């Protein structure tokens, strides 16, 4: 536990220094939850290096006897793992761009304008999430087939964006709501067009919202399985969740491959999060919000 005197953390301070015990408490809470968060993840890692294809083990050892990186080697040599990773990256990044773009503009309309059908739209957007996905399987296949989207990434792009948008729209609307209108009014008086005001004044202040929206869109596409299984028919076009699923079979799942793939699948997410998370750190955007 870090009992050292509290220090400023490189980011603008939250005022005077905190008492040592409060900082200590922060570390205590964080460490506790880090252990909780990491332990099951370590278990997954443990499965990935366990010989003999076992999901469960009878002891608590993290490094099992005769541990091996065999599964990782097999992923790259025997399975088209890199192709799946590439497909997933392409689809997820496209969904992120489209999702953030549509949510950034749509959310702004919902936050700033009282147009006809606004309340209905907001509720209607929500209702799309209320139907159990199980029952959508049948009609979904019909829609995908009729739109000739079988075996295309375009199909994934459309459906994933539609899945991610309801949350993203509401989230962006929430973020715009926290930004005072007075700043936009000032820009308007200076002669900026509505679009220019939105892009140059409002959007930069909503960066944390954009980051969350991007992360959410990315994760939606990165981990989605049901729609992908309906659309993609070619192993060469598989995204990672489909690839992972191909190691799974009732009572004869390849646990080593599955777990090692799961570990590798989470690495890009961690990288994306690290890249984006500096925008979730205190102080970077706060300056502009000052009135």
């Amino acid at each position, binding site marked *: 536990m870090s009992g050292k005197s509290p220090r400023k953390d490189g980011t603008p301070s939250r005022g005077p220094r905190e008492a040592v015990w409060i900082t200590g408490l922060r570390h205590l809470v964080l460490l506790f939850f880090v252990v909780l968060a990491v332990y099951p993840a370590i278990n997954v890692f443990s499965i990935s290096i366990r010989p003999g294809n076992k999901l469960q083990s009878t002891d608590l050892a993290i490094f099992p006897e005769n541990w091996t990186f065999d599964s990782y080697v097999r992923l790259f040599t025997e399975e088209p793992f890199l192709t799946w990773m590439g497909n997933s990256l392409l689809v997820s990044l496209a969904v992120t761009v489209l999702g953030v773009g549509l949510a950034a503009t749509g959310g702004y309309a919902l936050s700033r*304008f009282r147009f006809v059908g606004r309340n209905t739209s907001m509720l209607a957007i929500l209702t799309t999430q209320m139907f159990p996905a199980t029952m959508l399987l049948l009609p979904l296949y019909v829609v995908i087939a009729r739109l000739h989207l079988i075996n295309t990434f375009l199909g994934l792009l459309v459906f994933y964006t539609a899945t991610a948008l309801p949350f993203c729209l509401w989230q962006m609307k929430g973020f715009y709501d926290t930004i005072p209108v007075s700043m936009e009014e000032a820009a308007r008086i200076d002669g900026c067009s509505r679009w220019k005001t939105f892009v140059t004044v409002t959007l930069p202040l909503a960066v944390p919202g954009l980051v969350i929206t991007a992360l959410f869109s990315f994760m939606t596409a990165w981990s989605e399985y049901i729609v992908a299984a309906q659309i993609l028919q070619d192993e060469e076009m598989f995204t990672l969740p489909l690839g992972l699923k191909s190691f799974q079979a009732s009572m004869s799942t390849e646990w080593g491959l599955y777990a090692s793939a799961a570990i590798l699948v989470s690495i890009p997410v961690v990288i994306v999060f690290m890249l984006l998370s500096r925008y979730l750190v205190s102080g970077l955007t706060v300056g502009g919000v000052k009135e």
Partner: protein
Amino acid sequence: MAAGKIILRDGFAGILLVLVIAGLCGCGSEERTRIVLWHQMVVDERVVLDELVAEFERLNPDVRVQTLYKENEELRSGFQAAALAGTGPELIYGPSDPMGAYMTMGIVGDLSPHFEDGFLDGFTPRSLTWLADEKKPDEKMLVQIGDRVGNHLALVYNRNLIENPPQTTDELIALAIENTVDADGDGKPEQYGLVWNFIEPFFAIPFLTGHGAWVFEAEGSTVPALDTPESVAAMEFIKSLQSEHNVVPAGCDYETADALFKSGSAAMIINGDWSWGGYLSLETPDVDAVIAPLPVVSSTGIPMGPMVASKGYSLNVNVAEESVEHDAAIRFVEFMTSEPVQREFMTRLKTLPSRASLLDDPAITNDPTLLASAQQMQNGRAMPVAAELRAVWDSMRPPYQELMGGGISADEAAEKMQSSAENGIRLMNQQLKPDASVWLLRLIAAFATAGLIFWQRKSFHAFIRDWDKNRFAYFLIGPALLVIAATIIYPFFYNVVLSFSNMSLRNFQDWQVTGFQNYGEVFAGADSKFYMILLKTLIWTAVCVVLHVSLGLLLAVTLNGPVKGKAIYRVLLILPWAIPAYITALTWRGMFNLDYGAVNLIATKWFGLPAVNWLGEEYNALAACIITNVWLGVPFMMVIALGGMQGIPQELYEAARIDRVSRWKQFRHITLPMLKPVLLPAVTLGTIWTFNNLNVVWLVSNAGEPADDTHILVSYVYKAVFNLYQYGYGAALSMVIFFMLLIFSLLFLRKTKATEGVT
């Protein structure tokens, strides 16, 4: 110069656009006939399959075969959906047990007319599945050609511990007692004599047959016979292994049994042919696995016989006869079931062939494993292909689990199995007929449409008036709404109609609107568990969401202060979100294991707490699901809260500090209200998602364990639709879920004024 630049720039953008579109479409032209095969061969089998497909394509240069792996249940539900939509793969490969259902649904074609004379004579009778349409019982159709027979259970024993396999159940019990070792005398053996999967009734079948019982009244019958003296005797025998002889563990699912045997902690395991390869190739000095036929039941003299199924190829009914695809598909099936191909599978993957001529092949008779497998198969009984078998499994599972959990006696278990099997089969075969309520429905639909048109007309005028004023807003929101509408409108209305229909196993393609019966079944069905499950769903949702939000906020507040190593904490804390939930949910299931799970081991060894039977008791299992889901969901809320906190002006805190306002009050009166617009969407949608979160409950409770008690409404829908084919009922239940969530959202949004926003 400037123009050149623009052309250059636009040209570049154009090329980029074309590339992106080409990449997204995955276009490619092909001259050869393409056929698609959906199969469920696992990783090792796929290697052989790919080689053989390449060989076929070499011999048939005009055909390209595209193989696609789908997990068993995925294949079934996916094929049903695709066939209903009039498309789908030309061929499917899998076990024979769904054939009865496919036949009833009318989604598989007849293979028999398309082969040369004599081709079918070489197959063992068990490997050809002939079925007749109920309306034309004399015209039998060949719906599947098997390329192998098997999928059967046998006894696997560890030669380090047991010299010779047991011939009778008395010997089995004696050997098991000898090999159940409790060295430290804590009452919990370190090594068990015998293990198997206590969850799936498939594993109880050999005990039934050995006692002279069978799931149906006779071969070919679909009347369940689970409450007979023979089946009670079988279940008493199973129970005695646990309660009287103490040679099997208290709770044991597939993965636990597997891990126990592989680590040398179980002397014998009952498992299927799919698992033997893994046992034989174990590279550990502790285990020397040998396969043997299951013993003879001492009290009856009947050998324990597992269910035996064939696996093979079936033709999609949508493939037009005379088409090139049809011809290519038949050629492919001929090739894949030919003798050389079967020998290849047999020698490399130890599968039993479906061609009679191969059964005496030295490859079988010289291989102890294949020989034992073939012997075991002789004692086996063919797995029924009738759709009713699914209802039987469903009805056996809960009482079987209760029996093994010690909750009920063998008599009670048998009685429960029988009555619930009868009920399940009745529901599954139910054919609703349109009743008077159809007229009421039409009336309501007409009024609703009229009302909608009238209301829309008013809104439409308002919209026209508003257009000039708010054109910018429509321009901004339009694309997003279009994308959402394009994907959801059709599925939504499809489900609305379906919920008033009789779509089910027996009315799969020819379903019609029948009225309100499905809704009646939801609220007042004979053994409707609706209200109980609703209660569990509410507990599940409320506890999960409250913990998601409060823990997420706690972590965000903690992280949002001056702490060293923030970046590292943050990354570690989002790991539960980053790792695919399927594997982490199953990891949690393993951690909740009664004897070997980390949760109990840590609680008992480090803290001296009593062990909790997490997965074996009704509300504990729900708690286990909740803990898993909270673990999965907190990082998301934490990230949202962190993002929201960046927009709160620091001056507010500074002013509060000067006024010596306590931290709690700062949180209560500054942080929370300022976070509200950002948190509200997450809370609203988080509630909706949690309410409908099928995966976690399904995976952690292993589809409803114990005794089918751990369900929330969506997992119940899933079961009804996928196990009993009650599409209409499932759609009605989905509509009920939909309206409950709609009402919740309306009330919640009104109360919190979430739609209003900036003022």
